[in-house]
């Protein structure tokens, strides 16, 4: 298959690789190529990951010991707010959009995204938003210090930094919506003949559902922050009780967006892992159909559980019970997925290269994060644990060990395809082991801190929390520093190294492995033949 459409004409191949784009920076500004744009998304997200990570280290340095050491409480609040916004909107989401750009056309046998020029816009909206967010630290009054949830009344009172944050959210929302429309259209329309929806690679399925979640939920967030903006400057009182509004309304709207957002981050991560685990188990994915239904179910239910973030806002008992049971219901399809991944490995011929290690790390730690999520779903328990470090530990297990580890898994898995070189396996494994050890040192003690009652978003704490905070800070700095390894690995692989085959992993299946490594600038100009037996691998 490889010979038919890629290596067939060596001359044309060279032409494809170099003729169609301007050289230098103009190539990157004007590109409509899904591979270029995917690479830019990934680099952008890594830069934002380092920026957001540096902010988290400021937080952990301050929390190393009780009392106020390095930063003022106001600056601390700004750091934790920007850390969250940058990590969610700047690092994790663009990372998976980058994967989608690179891999979805190659997985479904399309030559590019459906709307290539809009794709360029989707990316180039991100840097202005990132600049607005980070520069807001330096304006009078500083950046938004409300936490990423931007709850009024505080968010109505803050300075111009809050307005910059609101505009940044608007721009990020536009970028996400455009990107999602593009991805959904690509998946629905540009699949190679014979690839029906139920024969589509699972990563595409996760992105199809994620795309719909983004299209439906990002406008909700945009509306909420627009109301904040008009409350701040145009005399409306959507969230001001003195004018007949209600600050709790903002919480409802925010979390109606915010909970699907959790699965917007998690679903593509599930997709990546669903490719890596079968490849290194040398088996087909167990229960493909149930995986698809589980993805759809998670996507649907995620719109009906928002108020489990709001048990202490005074919602009535009936509401608390409904949201408690609905939240627990999400554990069912998620459990199906975990079961399928484990069963895929059952009696497989396993090897443990770096992508597989990160996928396994994801599996174990995401399951822990999911279980603490179930604990928090219980109203009676949550009233005790609301806004404690237990919640911080919970969502870092699903966001860092879930989404980030999955992104690393995908990075190591597809890096040979992108660069044409095998990465340094030793460094990759070192990166994994340092990450998983330091991650647990950083975040596991936070469960104990939360159970003991340490509140989140406060720069100071009572003396009895000191020891676990020391451990957590040491782990955070170790984790942060070991992330620089991935930069070395990627630079090495881009520069050189052992040549990668078109299919460097013997257990990997799918159309993306039928093109040479590195993938030529243009692939699948004509739809490739699709072998149904290769599906679901």
């Amino acid at each position, binding site marked *: 298959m490889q010979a038919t459409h890629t290596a067939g004409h060596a001359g044309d191949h060279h032409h494809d690789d170099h003729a169609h784009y301007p050289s230098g920076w103009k190539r990157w500004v004007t590109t409509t190529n899904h591979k270029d744009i995917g690479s830019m998304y990934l680099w952008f997200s890594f830069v934002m990951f380092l920026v957001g990570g540096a902010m988290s280290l400021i937080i952990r340095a301050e929390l190393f010991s009780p009392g106020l050491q390095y930063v003022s409480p106001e600056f601390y609040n700004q750091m934790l707010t920007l850390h969250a916004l940058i990590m969610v909107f700047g690092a994790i989401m663009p990372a998976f959009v980058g994967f989608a750009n690179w891999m979805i056309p190659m997985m479904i046998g399309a030559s*590019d995204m459906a709307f290539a020029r809009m794709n360029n816009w989707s990316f180039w909206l991100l840097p202005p938003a990132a600049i607005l967010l980070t520069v807001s630290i330096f304006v009078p009054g500083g950046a938004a210090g409300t936490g990423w949830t931007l709850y009024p009344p505080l968010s109505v009172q803050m300075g111009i930094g809050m307005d910059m944050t609101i505009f940044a959210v608007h721009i990020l929302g536009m970028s996400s919506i455009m990107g999602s429309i593009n991805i959904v*259209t690509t998946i629905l*329309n540009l*699949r190679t003949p014979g690839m029906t929806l139920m024969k589509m690679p699972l990563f595409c399925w996760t992105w199809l559902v994620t795309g719909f979640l983004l*299209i439906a939920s990002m*406008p*909700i967030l945009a*509306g909420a922050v627009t109301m904040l903006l008009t409350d701040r400057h145009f005399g409306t009182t959507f969230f001001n009780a003195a004018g007949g509004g209600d600050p709790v309304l903002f919480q*409802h709207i925010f979390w109606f967006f915010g909970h699907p957002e959790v699965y917007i981050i998690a679903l593509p991560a599930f997709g990546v892992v669903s490719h890596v685990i079968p490849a290194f188990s040398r088996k087909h994915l167990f229960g493909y159909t149930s995986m698809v239904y589980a993805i759809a179910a998670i996507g649907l239910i995620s719109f009906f559980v928002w108020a489990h973030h709001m048990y202490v806002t005074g919602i009535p008992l009936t509401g608390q019970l409904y949201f408690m049971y609905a939240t627990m219901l999400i554990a069912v399809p998620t459990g199906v997925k975990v079961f399928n991944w484990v069963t895929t490995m059952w009696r497989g011929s396993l090897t443990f290269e770096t992508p597989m290690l990160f996928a396994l790390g994801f599996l174990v730690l995401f399951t822990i994060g999911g279980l603490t999520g179930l604990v928090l779903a219980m109203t009676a328990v949550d009233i005790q644990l609301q806004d404690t470090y237990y919640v911080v530990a919970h969502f870092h297990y699903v966001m860092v060990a879930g989404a980030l580890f999955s992104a690393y898994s995908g990075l190591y898995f597809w890096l040979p395809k992108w660069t044409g070189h095998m990465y340094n396996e030793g460094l990759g494994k070192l990166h994994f082991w340092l990450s998983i050890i330091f991650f647990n040192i950083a975040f596991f003690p936070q469960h104990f801190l939360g159970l003991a009652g340490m509140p989140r978003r406060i720069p100071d704490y009572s003396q009895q929390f000191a020891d676990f905070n020391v451990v957590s800070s040491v782990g955070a700095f170790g984790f942060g520093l070991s992330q620089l390894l991935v930069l070395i690995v990627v630079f090495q692989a881009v520069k050189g190294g052992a040549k990668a085959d078109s299919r460097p992993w013997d257990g990997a299946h799918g159309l993306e492995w039928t093109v040479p490594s590195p993938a030529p600038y243009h692939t699948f100009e004509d*739809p490739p033949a699709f072998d149904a037996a290769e599906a679901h691998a």
Partner: protein
Amino acid sequence: MNPELSPVGSTTADSRPRVGSNVRIASILVIVVVGSLLFVAAQPRLYRAFCEWTGLYDIDRAEQVAVSSLPGRPVTLEFDANSHDGGLLFRPQTNSLAVKTGEIVHVIYRVENTRDSTVIGQAVPSYGPQHAGGYVKKLECFCFKQQTFAPHEVREMDVVFLIDPKLPDDVATLTLSYTFFEVPAGGAKALATSAEVRT
């Protein structure tokens, strides 16, 4: 298929299983986006309607429930006013009032600044018997903040409150007394804070 709508680089009409043209799908998705925007725009109204329908939002109804659970009983209120310095003439419009617990009471106090200069003052309440003070629920009071009186100004000021029906049975007469203190120019803030804590 529409070649002009095909992705960049795709030259030949291919046999991909298209759902519709790219633009058609994107239009449908844009409609979803617009629908979401309309949905969020309707939220303030929907939220209020939902809360009113379920009764979640009705503070008055909650107050009625709280009041009706305990029957009111008659109690006599006496009003008293003192001024710490001679410059302010301070007295209530009503000296005594027979009310029921749980009823909202509205009383007016009158202040006259007899001096030629501006006076800043703060009224501090006290109660007799003292332990009844916790049952006086003030909704609005001139004692909540400092008052500035122009030379020879006369002002009428409101206090609105209700007596908690849980008032102990041995209290048949409750005296509400205010003393006006002149606020020295520098220490204004400290006095205001301590006075608010006591009310």
